[in-house]
């Protein structure tokens, strides 16, 4: 039962992603062709709100629901992994027209063929796990 709040957070997030059409193949293609402001608006405003939220949490030492200090997990300080991994991700994002969030929203939306894309994303993750030690990080 203690996990139900995450389920509810996911439901709200999924509805917002679907209704804002952020899960649409067309919206992603328009973004990468600079044909529409829509996706830039969504991501831009989301980041501004996120920055303010995190800043407030840090400034006022806001604690979580259980009263524990909030923990942030800093990302590795590396260049190659973001340059190579990030670019590969971007190529996949434009080719499939979806990043992981939209993939799963689309499956819920009844667009089951997106499960193919999701399944191969899992295959990609698996192969990364296999090759991790051989890749520059």
């Amino acid at each position, binding site marked *: 039962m203690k996990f139900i*709040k995450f*389920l509810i957070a*996911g439901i*709200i*997030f999924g509805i*917002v*992603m*679907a*209704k*804002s*059409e*952020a899960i*649409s*193949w*067309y919206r992603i293609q328009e*973004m*990468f062709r600079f044909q529409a*402001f829509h996706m830039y608006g*969504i*991501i831009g*405003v989301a*980041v501004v*709100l*996120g*920055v303010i939220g*995190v800043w407030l*949490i840090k400034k006022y030492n806001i604690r*979580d*629901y*259980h009263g524990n200090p*909030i923990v*942030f*997990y800093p*990302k*590795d300080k590396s260049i190659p992994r*973001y340059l*190579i*991994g990030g670019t*590969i*991700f*971007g190529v*996949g*994002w*434009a*080719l499939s*027209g979806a*990043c*992981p*969030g939209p993939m799963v929203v689309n499956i*819920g*939306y009844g*667009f089951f063929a997106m499960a*193919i*894309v999701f399944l*191969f*994303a*899992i*295959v*990609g993750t698996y192969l*990364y796990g296999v090759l991790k030690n051989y890749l520059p990080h």
Partner: protein
Amino acid sequence: MLQILQQPWPWYIAGPLIGLTVPALLIIGNKNFGISSSLRHVCAACIPAGIDYFKYEWKKEIWNLLFVLGIIIGGFLATVYLSSGEEIIIHENLRTELKGYGITDFSNALIPSDVVSWNQLFTLKGMLMIVLGGFFVGFGTRYAGGCTSGHSIMGISALSWPSLVATICFMLGGFIAANLLLPIILSL
């Protein structure tokens, strides 16, 4: 009211709600917003096969899988209760470009069924877009240690420079693929 909710939501409504997911998850459960780590948890839970990257206590990350399950349910609720049934508005230039590649069926709302469908799985074009595309997303996001949610929204919100670098590379890869690779692939 319902009719308003059934229309596509503008960016200035959706953006804040997505941004608020970051402090919401931090406060309700001390969790960092991120979706693609669920791909790793699925591998760790189903096929760890002794690989170091999948040897960790994925059960501690079960909240992330439930969050993703919620996202799927959210998509379902949106289509059942909040769908207007109207055809999606597509930028004229994109529509013209797609018609040039023989993509003319725009009836399936959010995604062209000429591109993402079970039938496309057996064509070279489909293989490159949905099989290789999905593969690159999964491989790339784990290599980069996050996706659009974990880096572009959560990471940048926490003012982490690696996330900014990752986001720039996401966009760069996307520009290259959409403007240089897709025209070739779609003409196949």
